[in-house]
């Protein structure tokens, strides 16, 4: 005798599955479409006749002889020097992640282990800082930075991003440290470590998952930032996102939007890879904040 699953009525299953499928389509389609279209010429991707052109690419075939073309990528990376902004992005994101995590683990550990009242106030202060729109802070930086002649350099943008990132990093690492029992570092200190040694040799090794998760989010913040990098970096030091924004100003008139499309796809690809490899950490990170926050 086969016992039927009677847990979920069929219409409900159909409805919820359709809904999920629809959502996945909504979430994924724009990316698939744009990646596909980035290998076409502009008259296909932005076709006045039919969007079907973007799929088959008749003009692309007419102009380049094949259904796919790397012209957009060539234009962006070589002609428009997208390459150097990629290098800048790498420098900025790596530095931001490393410095943020260093500061953040120290601070988060202190907040998690100190029982005094002021930790609460510091965390609240961090929350308020976290809420500040970045552009309001930028409007505070510009004039002093001009005066001090440090405007436009990569280190300036890096340290600013680190600072902006601190409230979030502190909160997140603080909650991760709270989940590690106090006994661990206390027994290490009884065994003869100093506070810092206990932190470095006993706590950090078991904290790796939390550190990696937090690092991912620091990376995303630095990588996705537009307000700070657009306003604080000079033209040659630009990172990818402001570079893409500057493409829009210049290229659209010249009729080569495809450079921007190619640049957009290039900038998104690393994020895809990131999500693919670190999906679990990202999910756990979002939740860790939620559970403790």
């Amino acid at each position, binding site marked *: 005798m086969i016992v039927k699953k009677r847990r979920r009525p069929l219409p*409900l299953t159909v409805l*919820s599955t359709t*809904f*999920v499928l629809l*959502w*996945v389509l909504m*979430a*994924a389609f*724009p*990316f698939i*479409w*744009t990646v596909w279209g980035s290998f076409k010429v502009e008259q296909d991707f*932005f076709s*006045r006749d039919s969007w079907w052109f*973007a799929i088959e690419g008749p003009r692309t075939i007419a102009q380049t002889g094949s259904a796919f073309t790397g012209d957009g990528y060539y234009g962006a990376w070589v002609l428009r020097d997208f390459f150097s902004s990629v290098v800048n992005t790498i420098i900025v994101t790596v530095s931001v992640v490393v410095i943020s995590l*260093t500061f953040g683990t*120290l*601070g988060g550990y*202190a907040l998690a282990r100190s029982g*005094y009242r002021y930790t*609460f106030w510091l965390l*609240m202060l*961090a*929350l*308020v*800082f*976290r*809420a*500040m*729109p970045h*552009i*309001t*802070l930028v*409007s*505070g930086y*510009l*004039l002093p930075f001009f*005066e001090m002649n440090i405007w436009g350099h990569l280190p300036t943008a890096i*340290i600013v991003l*680190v*600072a902006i990132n*601190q*409230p979030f990093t502190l909160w997140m690492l603080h909650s991760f440290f709270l989940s590690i029992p106090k006994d661990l570092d206390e027994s290490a200190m009884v065994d003869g470590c100093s*506070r810092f040694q206990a932190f470095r040799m006993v706590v950090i090794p078991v904290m790796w998952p939390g550190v990696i998760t937090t690092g991912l989010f620091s990376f995303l913040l630095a990588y*996705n930032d*537009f*307000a700070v990098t657009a*306003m604080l970096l000079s033209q040659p030091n630009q990172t990818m996102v402001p570079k*893409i924004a500057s493409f*829009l100003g210049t290229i659209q008139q010249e009729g080569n939007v495809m450079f*921007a*499309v190619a640049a957009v796809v290039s900038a998104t690809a690393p*994020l*895809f890879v990131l*999500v693919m490899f670190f999906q679990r950490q*990202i*999910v756990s990170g979002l939740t860790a*904040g*939620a*559970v403790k926050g």
Partner: protein
Amino acid sequence: MPHKAFFAFIMPSLLAMLLFIALPIVSVAVQSLYVQHERVVTEVETCAPFAGCTTETRVDAEATEKLRHAEPLGRFNGFGTYLDRNHLATAEIGAILADNAGFADIASRIYNLPFYRALAFTLTYTFVVTPLAMLLGFCIALGVNAIPPFYKGPVIFFSLLPMIVTPLVGALILYWMSSPQGILGATLQSLLNDPTLSLKSSAVLTWVTLLVYGIWHNAPFSFVVFYAGLQTVPHDTLESAMIDGANRWERIRFVVIPHLMPLATFVALVQLMDNFRVFEPIVGFSAEANATSLSWSIFNDLRGQVDQLFGSAAATSMLTIVGVVILLSPVLVRTWREFNRR
């Protein structure tokens, strides 16, 4: 942990925050009280033969530059900037209130003042996108929770993309698709049978597009948090409810939702903060003609290549900060009460 060790550990982080978050806020506050120098004007008398002498006023570029260099802040203006036409526009509002043709007239005239325009969109965006994105995220979480485990990984992967993508880039991608030559724009044109339809052309459509983008971008966050929350719903309680006679909806209503409530508060808080600084989508959608936000106004003031309006940007920033504090105040007050009770 003793005070000394505590401060040693937290010093780098605290220093960074004080120098680059607290100090800039002070700097913004100071800047907002100043306004850029007027151009130095000199009167030059030119006497040409036969024509007699004429006095001309000219901008003395060199002197202007010198003055700016000497006093980069500009000249003191008190609260003048806050009250001028581009910010709180007290005089203009007074005039509108004194002489108007009904409520609609007041609203439309106030909406024409740049600050209130930006404020209107910012608030609409914040308070429309946040609840709708949370609702959508919750529904997706319920849906994904019910599909076979094998498909959950890929679904979560695709679901994360709209959130993780660079906001400017995400906005651009949707902008291109919704332009009249893009797939969405063209489809809409043919569906509604209106070949001139362009999402950019009307204020309402622009707003709707931006709001849809906002929901698309924000829903995954709620989804992930709620989905994780669903995994920890206490099994016993759920089964008790089943035996007590609760149907599917009542189980969600009485067990699942109460369990997710703390998470929902957290999500709402984070999303309100993030949505209040809405900025990149306006740049990405080139929507500034129909929709501006507070952050965008600041950006616009600072972007001027020749005349960066520091004073004006600072005043808007201060008003934005006040907005943020108002937004956060319920949370802060509540947390403070809870903390004191402990």
